[in-house]
């Protein structure tokens, strides 16, 4: 029963990593670029919700929506300032510029909230549900449900809306997309916005699970989201989901017995997966034709 308990815990945190990983992967899939401001964007959005909810007592749903909108706007600003002007430069350049934007965002949040760890009131309440021997935190249930709902909505957006179609077209061939009349710049902006929204939702669920917010929270989530995206096959959204869940379950099952090596053990196993499947679990197979 203990293992089942750990797997449930793992799925919960894994679904958070999956959201962050998908936010990453959607940008990578469309542009072949890694948005290193992703972690700080999701941290800032989470702080916006925190400020409204804890400070101004705005209802949690409204505060969360405001935080997500803040993430969309910030991601759009990062795209406009740090990505579009250098889109044709060597890919190290947008890496550095997004890293720089991340630092700026972090410093602005620090000016307002400092660098301490602040309590984030869990919006799902702090009780447990007991099923047989299993104790499942209400927060965990809420996290899983929100994550699943978000993923379903996002998948439907990509699949069934014209804007989602535009994203899939741009991801495959930007020049051809332009020549079909797809507004490519607007679509890229939408990709970053979607990534920002997914990131902030992930950040909120992370804060809700751990019941804290802090300035540095973006980095570990970014790292794990990044790892999840790579293990799944970066650019592949189902892969990012799978990678996130695997990472979460590894952490929850192997982690507790590994003490302070908890993160290391999970990453060692991820490296092992990559040794066997270098392109990730669902990564692009070898091109079928030239």
């Amino acid at each position, binding site marked *: 029963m203990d293992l089942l308990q750990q797997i449930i815990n793992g799925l919960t945190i894994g679904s958070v990593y999956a959201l962050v990983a998908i936010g990453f992967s959607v940008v990578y899939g469309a542009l072949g670029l890694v948005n290193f401001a992703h972690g700080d964007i999701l941290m800032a959005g989470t702080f916006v919700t925190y400020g409204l909810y804890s400070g101004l007592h705005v209802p949690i749903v409204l505060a969360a929506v405001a935080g997500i909108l803040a993430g969309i706007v910030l991601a759009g600003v990062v795209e406009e300032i740090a990505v579009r002007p250098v889109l044709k430069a060597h890919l190290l350049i947008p890496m550095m510029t997004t890293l720089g934007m991340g630092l700026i965002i972090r410093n602005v949040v620090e000016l307002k909230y400092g660098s301490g760890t602040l309590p984030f009131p869990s919006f799902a309440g702090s009780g447990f549900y007991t099923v047989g021997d299993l104790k499942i935190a209400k927060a965990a249930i809420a996290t899983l449900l929100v994550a699943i709902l978000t993923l379903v909505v996002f998948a439907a957006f990509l699949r069934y809306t014209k804007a989602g179609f535009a994203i899939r077209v741009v991801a*495959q*061939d930007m*020049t051809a997309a332009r*020549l079909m*009349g797809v507004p490519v710049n607007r679509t890229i902006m939408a990709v970053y916005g979607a990534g920002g929204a997914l990131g902030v939702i992930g950040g909120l669920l992370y804060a809700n699970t751990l019941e804290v917010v802090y300035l540095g929270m973006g980095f570990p989530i970014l790292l794990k989201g990044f790892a999840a995206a790579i293990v799944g096959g970066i650019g592949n959204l189902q892969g990012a989901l799978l990678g996130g869940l695997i990472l979460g379950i590894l952490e929850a099952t192997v982690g507790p017995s590994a003490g302070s090596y908890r993160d290391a053990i999970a990453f060692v196993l991820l490296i092992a997966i990559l040794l066997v499947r270098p392109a990730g679990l669902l990564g692009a197979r070898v091109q*079928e*034709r030239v």
Partner: protein
Amino acid sequence: MPETLLRAEDLTVRYGPVTALENVSLHVDEGEIVALVGANGAGKSTLLKTLSGLIRPAAGTITFRDTDLARTQAHRIVQAGLVHVPEGRHVFPRFSLKENLLAGAYTNDWKNAGKRAEEIIESTPILARRAGSTAGQLSGGEQQMLVIQRALMADPRMVMLDEPSMGLSPVLADQVLELVSGLRDRGVTVLLVEQNALGALDIADRVYALATGEVLYSGSSAELRDDPQFADQFLGVVSADAERRAQESGHH
């Protein structure tokens, strides 16, 4: 007197210090098939990219109907009715054939596009038999048919085709050129870039010949066919080129 659909005047395009096009002027009238011929590097593809808004000219004007294309974003040029089928086909490789055609209708009647796409696939034998594939799995000829049909999904007034027969077997190349020459009957005006100048002369009403970024010859296909200088410079270039290509393909 047919209406002039597209008019470019004194276009100059530079890539950094390199001048790719110098004072190029051309016009295409409604209902015409106009061919652009010339060797590799003559500026043909650059000219099409400039007309479709992928590249901005350093100088000169482009008018399509009433739209000033030199100041119009690429996706708005499609909306205006001018669609560019680029060199190298550029299918969306992970999409099904139907999804590829849908992309072509992005600026058009989106609601009925799915049905139209299915009809096109059914009525095009070369596509119908590959209906279950993704576009990336198609052969070059099949992809070429697909991207021409994809462009037509926008119901354009005019299409620009960049080397549609390149890399295809002679039989397929003929099929593609046949499809191109049939576009006129559907009311679509065509600007065709072809390295195969003989094939281009066969289906075009008029021809512009480019060399090193400038228009060297222009005239009706019949006139140019009888112009010994043109034949020497452009039909000769083509035959030498064909020879080289034949030699290269012999190695594969």
